[in-house]
């Protein structure tokens, strides 16, 4: 091999590999996607927290609430905000769903993030929401659950394990579907 070709290959081949990897990385990069408060991936996603993360809040009516106290029930935790349009459109659906599912022992918990308490109270009253809600003023709970945007829902089985996570607003049908599957699993009818 000519003496000048060897060093060129020595540098050229790694450089070529580097450029190829760089191009692949740029094509697959998440850079450019996502805006504050907006989920860019809708539907069911991987659970983004420890599966047995506990939740401890004070609800709007001043009562302390711990997720671990709800063990034995299926729990749906909803992260939302009063200024978020999908949350507004979803609120009546959740209010009606809670009336139906609470009779079957399913609990709903709302955690409002990036919001003010007065706006949250107005929102809850406006939509006739009966299930407990709390304001995450410091945003610590949202980070603990790996929340990126709103609305995001976490589904907890009766053993206290967070088993599913859904980004974006739900329809009445999709919410019923998830809760039915979880109930079936809980009573040993279907797998989850």
């Amino acid at each position, binding site marked *: 091999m000519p*003496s000048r070709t060897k*060093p*060129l290959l*020595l*540098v050229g081949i*790694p*450089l070529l*590999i*580097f450029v190829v*990897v760089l191009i692949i990385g740029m094509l697959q990069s*998440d*850079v*450019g*996607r*996502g*805006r*504050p*408060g*907006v989920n860019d991936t809708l539907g069911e996603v991987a659970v*983004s*927290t*420890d599966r047995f993360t506990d939740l401890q809040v004070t609800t709007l009516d001043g009562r302390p609430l711990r997720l671990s106290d709800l063990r034995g029930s299926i729990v749906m935790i909803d992260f939302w905000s009063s200024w978020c349009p999908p949350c507004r459109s979803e609120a009546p659906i959740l209010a009606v769903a809670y009336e139906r599912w609470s009779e079957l022992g399913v609990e709903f918990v709302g955690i409002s993030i*990036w919001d003010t308490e007065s706006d949250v109270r107005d929102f809850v009253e406006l939509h006739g929401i009966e299930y407990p809600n709390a304001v995450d003023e*410091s*945003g*610590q709970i*949202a*980070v*603990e*659950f*790996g*929340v*990126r*945007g709103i609305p995001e829902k976490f589904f907890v089985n009766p053993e206290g394990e967070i088993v599913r996570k859904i980004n974006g607003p739900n329809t009445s049908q999709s919410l019923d579907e998830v809760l039915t599957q979880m109930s079936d699993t809980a009573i040993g009818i279907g797998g989850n």
Partner: protein
Amino acid sequence: MSATDDSLSMLMSSTPRPPSIWRTLVSIGFVAISVPLLWLATGCVNEDDLTTDQRAYQLSQQLMCPVCDGQTLDQSQAQLSLDMQAVIERKIEEGESNAEIRDYFVARYGEVVLASPDAGGFNIIAWVMPVIIFVGGALLVVNAFLNMRRNRRDDARGNEVEESTDSALEPMRPGEVMDEYLERADREIAAAVGNVSPRAETDADNGDRN
């Protein structure tokens, strides 16, 4: 010693020497040692030596805002970034290490939350390639430099040889050239015609006339 021998010995002495292997090895060694030292010098600050604010700032530079366009936490003003920075400060105060805090965020937001990839698995390419390219480039520069030096030395020696060879061949005077030519012509004619040299005959004729 004749002029030819002088030229030959000069040519032999000007044969290019192979580049010093030691010099090349020293260059490679210098690069191989200085790069990791530089790396260590910039990265060996113990996290225990830093204040909470300094560590929080350092970590916020190492973590990406999950909902922004290519911004680290310290660059972003998104509410989620501010919340994450508050979590970082709380965890530092609780005594968690930088690695534990990074792992906490990776578990929640995935590896994309790291501003620089973890040095393991496929990601190792991102760390190794720049070093390979840097070392390769340094070798290329060293090689080019050695070649330039060798070529310049060869050219200089070549010029010296040309000069000495030229000086060894003393120029002949025009009359001597003509005499040599005529003698050679005589020899060839004599060989072709016989032993009588036409020139000798001419000289004899001239002598008779005189």
